[in-house]
C-alpha cells in the first residue's frame, strides 16, 4: 500500500454574486485528481499558474476545504484533517513558497522553530532550547541565530528556518509548495540539495510542488502534470522526460532550455514544430471546455489523458 493516496480529489470554490450573494457557479480549482506516493520518494506536481497544484497541496494538509474525494495517509483517512488525530497532523508538515511572509516578523527565530514543539511536545525551557539549537545546526544556521528576528536573514536563510520548523516534529510527509521559486537561482541549488540531504537523513517523503521542470527533474522520482485542475499525464521521471505522450507535456518538456548554444537553432525549430502540433491537435487532446480527458494507462507507470476511443 502506498504512503499517501489521493483519490478523485475535488476542490471547488463557490463564486458568489448577484443581489442576494447567492452561489453563481464554481471555480473548479482541483477537479478529480488521483495519485499515490511511496514512502521515502519524492513526488513532483507540475503545472502552470492556476493549474491547481498548490490548491492540491493545501487541500491535503487541510488549509483548503475538500469538496469531494479521499485522502489516505499511511492507510488512515485524513480527508477532514481537523478531525483526524493529532498524531497524524504532526506527521504532515508544509514548507511554504514565500520565505518572507511565512515567518512571523514579530517572533524570534527560537520562538518560530519552537512553535510546533510547544504544541505537540511538553518540553522544559532547557530541552526546548536544545532542540532548537539542534535544528538550527541541522539546517546550517549558527546557534546565535535563535535570538534574531526573521528580517535579519536572507531569503535562503529564511527558507532554512521554514524547513527547520517543518522538520521539528520529525514528520513523515512534507508538502513543499514551490520551496525555491522565491529564491535566487544561486541559492536554489543549495536549498534543494539540503532538502535531499535531510530526506536521506530523516527518511522523509516529499510532495514537491513546482513549475520549474529543471528543479522537478533534479528532485523527483515520480511526476504528475496538471492543467486547469486536472491531470494530463503522470509517470516516472523517465516516462515524462523521455517519452511524453500528451501534447501539453511535450510542449512543457520542449520549453526546457538547452545549454549548448550550437543547438540553438535546432532547438528553436523543434520548439516551433511542437507548438504547431499543439495548436493543431488541441481539439483532439482537450474536450469542448478545454479540459483534459480521463487518464488512460500507456504502461504500468505511465498514465496519459487521452480521448476515449470510439
Amino acid at each position, binding site marked *: 500500500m502506498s504512503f499517501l493516496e489521493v483519490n478523485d480529489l475535488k476542490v471547488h470554490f463557490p463564486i458568489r454574486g448577484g443581489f442576494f450573494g447567492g452561489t453563481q457557479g464554481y471555480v473548479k480549482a482541483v477537479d478529480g485528481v488521483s495519485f499515490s506516493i511511496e514512502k521515502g520518494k519524492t513526488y513532483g506536481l507540475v503545472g502552470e499558474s492556476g493549474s491547481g497544484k498548490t490548491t492540491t497541496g*493545501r487541500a491535503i*494538509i*487541510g*488549509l483548503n476545504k475538500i469538496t469531494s474525494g479521499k485522502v489516505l495517509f499511511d492507510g488512515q483517512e485524513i480527508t477532514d484533517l481537523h478531525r483526524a488525530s*493529532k498524531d497524524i*497532523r*504532526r506527521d*504532515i*508538515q*508544509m514548507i*511554504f*513558497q*514565500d520565505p518572507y*511572509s*511565512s*515567518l*512571523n*516578523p*514579530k*517572533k*524570534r527565530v527560537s520562538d518560530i522553530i519552537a*512553535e*510546533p514543539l510547544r*504544541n*505537540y511536545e511538553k518540553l522544559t525551557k532547557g530541552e526546548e532550547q536544545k532542540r532548537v539549537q539542534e535544528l538550527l545546526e541541522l539546517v*546550517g*544556521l*549558527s546557534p*546565535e*541565530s535563535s*535570538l*534574531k*528576528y526573521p*528580517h*535579519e536573514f536572507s531569503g535562503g*536563510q529564511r527558507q532554512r528556518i*521554514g524547513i527547520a*520548523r517543518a522538520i521539528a516534529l520529525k514528520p513523515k510527509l512534507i508538502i513543499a509548495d514551490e520551496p525555491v521559486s522565491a529564491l535566487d537561482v544561486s541559492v536554489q541549488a*543549495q536549498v534543494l540539495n539540503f532538502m535531499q540531504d535531510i530526506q536521506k537523513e530523516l527518511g522523509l517523503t516529499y510532495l514537491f510542488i513546482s513549475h520549474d521542470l529543471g528543479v522537478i527533474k533534479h528532485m523527483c522520482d515520480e511526476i504528475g502534470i496538471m492543467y486547469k485542475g486536472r491531470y494530463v499525464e503522470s509517470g516516472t521521471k523517465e516516462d515524462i522526460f523521455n517519452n511524453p505522450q500528451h501534447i501539453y507535456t511535450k510542449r512543457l518538456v520542449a520549453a526546457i532550455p538547452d545549454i549548448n548554444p550550437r543547438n540553438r537553432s535546432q532547438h528553436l525549430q523543434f520548439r516551433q514544430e511542437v507548438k504547431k502540433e499543439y495548436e493543431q491537435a488541441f481539439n483532439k487532446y482537450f474536450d469542448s471546455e478545454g479540459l483534459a480527458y480521463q487518464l488512460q494507462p500507456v504502461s504500468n507507470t505511465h498514465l496519459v489523458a487521452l480521448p476515449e476511443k470510439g
Partner: protein
Amino acid sequence: MEMNKVELVNDKEVAISPSGWKIVGREIVRDKLALFSLILLTVIIILVYGVSFFLNQEEIVTVDLFSIHEPPSETHILGTDYGGRDVFGQLIIGTRNSLSIGIMVTVMTGVIGIIFGMVAGYFGGTTDNILMRILDFFQVLPFLMIVIVFVAIVPKYGILSFSLIMTAFLWMGIARLIRSKALQEKELDYVQASKTLGTSDLKIMFTQVLPNLSSLIIVTMTLNLAANIGLESGLSFLGFGFPESTPSLGTLVSYARNPQTLEFRWWVWVPASVLILVLMLSINNVGQALKRATDARQRRG
C-alpha cells in the same frame, strides 16, 4: 555543508537583537521631545494622584460665600471661583478625575474593541457579518443624546458609571480598525503555517496575529487616551458631564462661559485649559515615539 561554516563565522560578529522594551526605551531617549513629554506626563500624573490623596474633595467643593472670586494669594494658590471654592484643589482633583476616566475608557474600549475586531476579522464570513451588524447598530445610536438622557436619569453618578457609558459607545472605532487589519493579516502565510503546525485558532489570534498589530493598537490607544480626556472635558464643558460637586477639567473650563470670568478672572479657567493642552500634546508625543519604536523602518534609535 562548507558554506555553513562560513555563516557560522559571520554570525558571531553580529550582536544579539534587542528586545521590545529596550527598543521602546531607546526610541524615547533618542526623541528628546518625547522624552520631555514622558517626564512631564509622569510628573503630572504622580503629582495629581499624590497631592489629591491629601486633599479633601468634600471640603474643596463646599461653597464659601466669604471668599468669592479671590485672585491668587497665599491661602488660595490659584484663587477661588464664584462659589468661593479653591481652584487649585479643584484643578488637582479635576485632573485626577479626568485622567482616571480617560485611562479607564481607553483600556475598556481597547479590550472590547480588540477582542471583538480580532474575532470578526480572523474568522471572517458569517461570524464577521453578524458581529459587524451588531457594531453597526451601536454606531447609529446618537452618542450625545444618550449621554444627556443618562445624565438626566441617573441623578448621582461617579467616575465608574460615567466611564462605562462612554465605553459603551466608543469601542466601535478600534474594533473596526482591528478587524480590517486582522482580515489582511490572516491571509499571510505565517498564519497558515501556524495552522499546519497545530496551533489553535485562539492562540494564533492572540499570540501570532496580535503582536503584529501592536503598533497599531499602541498608537490608537494613546491617541484615544488624549481624545477621551478631551471628550470628557467637552461633555463637562457643555454641562452634560460631571456636576460641580465632582470637579473635572471640563467643569473648570466651563466657568469661562461667563464673560466676566473669561475676561477678568483668568485664574479660574486658564490653568485647566493649559493642563488639557499639555496633557494631550504630551500623550500625543509619546504615542508618536511608541509608533516609531514598533516599526523597525521608522526607528531613530
